[in-house]
């Protein structure tokens, strides 16, 4: 049972972080970054198998592999941005966290440009 391991680890880490935060908040932030990174890395292996399955399904149903790649890239960008923004917000830097989210939104829009163009193309084909 992986979830029991993760919850146990998080509870122990939370207690340690609360102890350290009273004295040295700057070290507590780094500890919480490591906890987040460890749990993320543990889960990414499982996400990998789900993505492989999704790609196989996309190949079977003749979806253009380019769009699948774009979706995966956007999900990856969102994951990384969320991780960074939450760490910043936890440390009390809400402004920097908002900037990270803003940058992530811009990058996602840029990545989605081919899809938007394809949607407009098919729309223009429908409208004579």
């Amino acid at each position: 049972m992986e979830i029991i391991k993760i919850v146990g680890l998080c509870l122990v880490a939370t207690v340690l972080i609360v102890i350290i935060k009273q004295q040295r908040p700057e070290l507590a932030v780094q500890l919480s970054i490591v906890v987040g990174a460890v749990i993320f890395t543990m889960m990414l292996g499982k996400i990998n198998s789900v993505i492989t399955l999704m790609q196989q399904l996309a190949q079977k149903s003749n979806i253009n592999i380019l769009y699948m790649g774009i979706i995966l890239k956007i999900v990856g960008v969102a994951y990384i941005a969320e991780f960074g923004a939450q760490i910043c917000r936890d440390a009390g830097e809400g402004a920097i966290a908002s900037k990270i989210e803003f940058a992530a939104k811009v990058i996602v829009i840029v990545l989605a440009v081919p899809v938007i163009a394809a949607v407009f193309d098919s729309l223009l084909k429908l409208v004579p």
Partner: protein
Amino acid sequence: METELIFQLAGISIVITVIYTVLKQAGRDEFAFSTLLLGIVVVLAMVIPKIADLFETVRSVFRIY
């Protein structure tokens, strides 16, 4: 599972806090501050490879090149 790093960092943090408090009580404020700075640098040097590792894994999983 790299849980050792979490406990290692927690131990380092607690030790640094204790040393800082002792030096501060002894009136050696400048040594106390340098110890704190050294501790933060050491912990950061241990944390950054972990973050790089995470980003590399995210990149390979989501095929971001």
